[in-house]
């Protein structure tokens, strides 16, 4: 199959990706789009740091700064970090549970295209009159006050991409519930699969409040409703609650899959099974559960009263316990192990102290009465970049290096990888460590500039220099990707030599049907068990037979495109332009029409016949 793909022309390849329903190709789409948005968000971060390098700077104007700031946060969270993680889930989770695809391949593609069009829509704001400027939290009073269409782009763009994420989450859940290979019980699932499961559950429950919040905001801004208009009886605190009921679980949606990635890396490169597997699973579930009971810690200064603040403070602190369990389990996985410091291991190893620092400042923030001081200062900025960059971004880098050979059949260059690591690591700490102190010294966050003479100059300069280091790292990383793709040295099933889970048992990249025969899973670290018994691969759980595969389809793209078009109509509707309403209706017709087509046109997929599979076996070996 892969050889066939290579012979295809460029146009055919593009068409292949536009219509694909294969989870591995969708994963690549997620990486391309998420990676692109990461660069965009990173560039915005660099602009932020340039503007703040010296006091009274006028690199960008005040209004533009707020747009950059908002788009940086929104892009990074919704369009970079989460999609990249979903990319890993797509690429790896079905392989880890021994499945041939996800439960709903078609829906999987719909999810991607919704995310993609939502992200594009949001970013088009730059060219269509200005980006959103009310912060990634878009608090209602400011959001309603904001002129132009910036906030409308935010509301509609996130709504579209949010729906994509939501159906993606359901898809992963069903895949894990129904499609595990024979013998793969829940307590034999690799940790990355577990964290995918819990993160997907969080998506399922956290995104509806956001959907509602965004809908209310859309109604207020575009259709004359009064949810947040105080003079009409509205209440802006509703938005804060809805946003954070979503927003806090969201940060665990980000960190749990990253934890999952690290939980794969430590055992592989320590050659030791994960220490305390069941307590890791337990901690993951507990973090997910507690994640829904702490949202108001973002609202300590809103004035909810001491009772609410105290309850949420204590609940928040409680999350430190399961997270601590994880940290110690990772450390003891390495304890008495045989550690090899590869690039993925560099990232994973450095993650521990880095994330730890972010985690403990989180607990400091949880102390409600002290948070009155920290809140909305650079201390908070430091906290969340330590956990997000030190946890999630490190995790993404680690995962990319770890699974690159699995996805593309070739290794990223280790030396370049390590150089990337050092630049990023040093730059990261330079940038964000000092920000703790900036916050304590009285520097609020989201300021487009600061006046001289308040003692903020040196620290901001240091911070900006650090961002420069990180940029160099990212550029080297891009270079690495290009160089290794050009060289394209092929590798086998288990390029790191110590793979433990099912994905390492099949070729790199895997054939499009993944497993010729579903493997029989006999315990945790299924592949490792077989290897230790001297076997080359997995024992099949079924005789070789026909494999049922879904057909490719262009409909997912069209469904998302319809909403994308409709969003423009909805947005310009307030300007009373004549074409707005028709455009909105046409867009919705496209979406619902294609949904309708999909539901009345039966699509039973196709079968790969036993004979073809046997032939391929000969060809591969």
């Amino acid at each position, binding site marked *: 199959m892969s050889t066939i793909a290579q012979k295809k022309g460029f146009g055919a390849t593009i068409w292949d990706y536009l219509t694909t329903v294969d989870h591995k190709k969708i994963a690549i789409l997620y990486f391309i789009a998420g990676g692109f948005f990461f660069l965009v968000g990173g560039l915005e971060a660099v602009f932020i740091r340039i503007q703040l390098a010296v006091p009274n700077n006028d690199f960008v104007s005040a209004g533009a700064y707020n747009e950059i700031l908002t788009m940086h946060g929104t892009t990074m969270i919704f369009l970079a970090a989460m999609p990249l993680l979903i990319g890993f889930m797509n690429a790896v989770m079905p392989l880890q549970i021994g499945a041939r695809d996800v439960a709903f391949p078609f829906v999987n593609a719909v999810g991607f295209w919704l995310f993609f069009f939502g992200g594009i829509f949001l970013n088009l704001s730059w060219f269509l009159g200005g980006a959103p400027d009310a912060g990634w939290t878009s608090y209602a009073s400011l959001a309603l006050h904001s002129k132009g269409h910036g906030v409308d782009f935010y509301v509609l763009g996130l709504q579209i991409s949010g729906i994509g994420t939501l159906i993606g989450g359901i898809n992963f*859940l069903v895949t894990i*519930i129904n499609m595990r290979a024979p013998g793969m019980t829940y307590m034999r699932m690799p940790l990355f699969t577990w964290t995918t499961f819990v993160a997907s*559950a969080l998506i*399922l*429950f956290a995104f509806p*409040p956001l959907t509602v919040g965004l809908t209310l905001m859309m109604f207020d801004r575009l259709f004359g409703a009064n949810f947040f208009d105080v003079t009409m009886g509205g*209440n802006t*605190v*509703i938005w804060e*609650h809805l946003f954070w*009921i979503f927003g806090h679980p969201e940060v665990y949606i980000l960190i749990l899959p990253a934890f999952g990635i690290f939980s794969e890396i430590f055992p592989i490169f320590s050659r030791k099974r994960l220490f305390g597997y069941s307590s890791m699973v337990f901690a993951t579930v507990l973090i997910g559960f507690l994640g*829904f*009971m702490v949202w*108001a810690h973002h609202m300590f200064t809103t004035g*909810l*009263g001491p009772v*609410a603040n105290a309850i949420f403070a204590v609940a928040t602190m409680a999350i430190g316990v399961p997270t601590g369990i994880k940290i110690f389990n990772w450390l003891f996985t390495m304890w008495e192990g045989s550690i090899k410091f590869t690039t993925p291991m560099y990232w994973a190893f450095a993650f521990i102290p880095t994330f730890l620092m972010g985690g403990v400042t989180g607990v400091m923030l949880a102390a409600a009465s002290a948070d009155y001081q920290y809140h909305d200062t650079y201390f908070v900025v430091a906290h969340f970049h330590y956990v997000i960059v030190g946890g999630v971004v490190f995790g993404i880098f680690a995962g990319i290096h770890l699974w690159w050979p699995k996805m593309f059949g070739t290794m990223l260059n280790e030396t370049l990888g390590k150089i990337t690591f050092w630049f990023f690591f040093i730059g990261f700490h330079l940038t964000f460590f000092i920000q703790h102190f900036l916050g304590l010294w009285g520097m609020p966050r989201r300021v487009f500039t600061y006046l001289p003479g308040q003692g903020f100059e040196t620290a901001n300069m240091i911070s900006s220099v650090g961002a420069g280091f990180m940029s160099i790292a990212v550029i080297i990383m891009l270079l690495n990707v290009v160089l290794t793709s050009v060289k394209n040295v092929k590798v086998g099933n288990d390029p790191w030599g110590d793979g433990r889970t099912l994905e390492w048992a099949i070729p790199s990249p895997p054939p499009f049907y993944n497993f010729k025969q579903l493997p029989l899973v006999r315990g945790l670290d299924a592949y490792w068990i077989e290897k230790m018994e001297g076997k080359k691969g997995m024992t099949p759980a079924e005789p070789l037979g026909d494999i049922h595969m879904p057909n490719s389809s262009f409909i997912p793209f069209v469904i998302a495109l319809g909403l994308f078009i409709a969003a423009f109509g909805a947005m310009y509707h307030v300007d009373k332009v004549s074409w707005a309403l028709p455009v909105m209706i046409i867009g919705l017709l496209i979406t619902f029409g294609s949904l309708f087509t999909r539901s009345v046109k039966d699509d039973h997929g196709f079968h790969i016949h036993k004979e073809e599979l046997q032939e391929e076996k000969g060809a591969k070996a």
Partner: protein
Amino acid sequence: MTNQPLSSGNPRVDLEYRRKKSAEEMRYQVISFALMIFLTLVAFAAVAMKGFTAWFTVPFIILLAAVQVVFQLFYFMHMSHKGHEAPTLFLFSGLFVGLTAILAFSTIIWW
């Protein structure tokens, strides 16, 4: 992946058994429907009779609604049947999250 539920080896016996089973279940469902209608009537009546204080009526009708929903979920939507472990878990988790939100909105949005 083929149909293997409730097999006794003899298709005729199976079928009859199944028929009876579902007829019986249908009877339960009609009963629960009757109960639901009854509960609804009680709730409407409680409101129609202006005699009670809101402190009584509100919790009372909410209780009635909750009971009714249990009927819906467990009888009409078969949530008590086996094979519904994941649905049950996720529905109740959703309910938990939702109720937390409702609790918050009715207490700490205070004006």
